[in-house]
């Protein structure tokens, strides 16, 4: 019981100590606006790339299997 209570307290503490200020910094602080913009610009590129590579690998495998069967 005590250990559960401790872990919850630690979670709250670490949220207040690290995560909350981090979120505030990202969402509220004007000085970080461009970092967020950069992350969005590059993030769209990288996410699309990862999704496309995964799709292509699946298609490649399918075509190779089809080729072997034929």
């Amino acid at each position, binding site marked *: 019981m005590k250990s559960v209570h401790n872990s919850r307290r630690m979670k709250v503490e670490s949220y207040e100590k690290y995560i909350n200020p981090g979120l505030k910094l990202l969402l509220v602080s*004007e000085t970080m*606006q461009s970092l967020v913009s950069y992350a969005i*610009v*590059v993030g769209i590129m990288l996410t*699309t*790339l990862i999704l*496309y*590579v995964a799709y292509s690998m699946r298609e490649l495998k399918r*075509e190779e299997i089809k*080729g072997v069967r034929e």
Partner: protein
Amino acid sequence: MISAVILVTYIVLCIVIGIITSKYVKTLEDFIVAGRRMGPWIVAFGFNTTALSGWLYLGFGGWVYREAFQAAWTMWGSGLFAVIASYVILGILVRRFSKITGSLTIPDMLEVRYYDQRTHILRYVSAAIILISIVIYIGSLEAQLAIAFRYVLGMGMLESTILGTAVVVIYCLLGGMLAAVWTDVIQGSLMAAVSITLPPLAFYAAGGLRLFEGVDRIAAQDPRFVLSPWASPSVVLYGISLILFASILSYMGQPALLNKFMIAKSDLIVRKASIISTILQVILWIGVFTCGLAARVIWPSPEALPGKNTELALPFLVETYLGPVATGLYWGAVLAAMMSTADSLMIMAVSSVANDIYRKVLRPQATEREILTLSRILTIIVGVLGIIIAFQPLLILWSAWLGWSGLAVFVVPILMGLYWKRGTREGAIYSLVTSFIVGLLWFALGLHRYVHIAMPSLLSGFAVYVLVSYLTKEPPKEVQELVEKVKKGIEV
């Protein structure tokens, strides 16, 4: 001095490749489609380096310097979505169609798909559009080459233009497409190496994470520096015309890019090449984007740049922080980007006359040797015409976009022709002519400053194609069956 040595070494290497590959060029098929025996790396590097000219390093770099996140529209469109769309929507179908029908060029393909073997009207129209657009486009590339030579070697404008053009003409003249694709691999590797190594160094030079504080300071004074598509209605409209029309659809219409699918050995090679192409493209664009931001933070005012020219922001960054060797390599990459686009376009222009008109219509009995000689003479002529365009100061600013949009008109008959069996010969002819004329008029009236030329040009092309196709007699049964066969991948 060191940068000049690196640049000259690179030029000599390109010519040596031309000499070596010339021994393997025996037929027109070797000259135009490199014998259709290329693997994924060559197809991918050929595609990327042809698509990206020196504009990526000079024009786009300068754009990011001026407007930062507004340049993201083009990066998403041209850097990613356009490449994926070209491979997924057209890549495999174009290769299959050209293989089944024995087509070497886009006009060849169009003639078969639109059953125009008797009148050859489509062939004449296509060849004329290709030739005019490519000569304009090459003119702009030769002017870019001249800037590079002037900056590094300190030569005059005329000598720089002639030297830059001569190098490309020599290796194309000797090795044709084979030389072009092999030099593309070297050029693409150089571009990738520069785009991987430069951003971390530029990031460090701009103060690490303080780079973003610098960007925020600039954004506080300049609203264009913020990532917001809703900054103004014109940004949204221009953004749509850039992403959808100037990037995605225009990529799919470029004969020099479609030609890269034809050199692939098989469908699987096209699929593998698409993965390599997309990864390479992301590396190249993100690299230049990051460097452009860093350059702006280091020099917030263009007054600090050579000649106050924002397009020289990236070369100046390299020169200031990384020394002469890196500067030589950087200019090598810029030159590589320009030359790899110019070589493919040159071969496309030559093939539109030598293969599409001379061999297919005027002299079908001509020998391979005769056509190869003609191709080589035409390579020189196209190079010289480009030099003349390069010296037209009024045209040069927009000539790259004009040439690019002129070639993009092929997306309508190619895309519709491969997916819609009801598309007719008349629809294709009227659509090509309409798109091309609308594009020229849009440019002549100065409307391209508000909406990109490609948008009205392609919209009118699609509308005319569908309308005329419905109003005319449907294509013969065998053509409709051919479209179905290609889609299903039968007899490949």
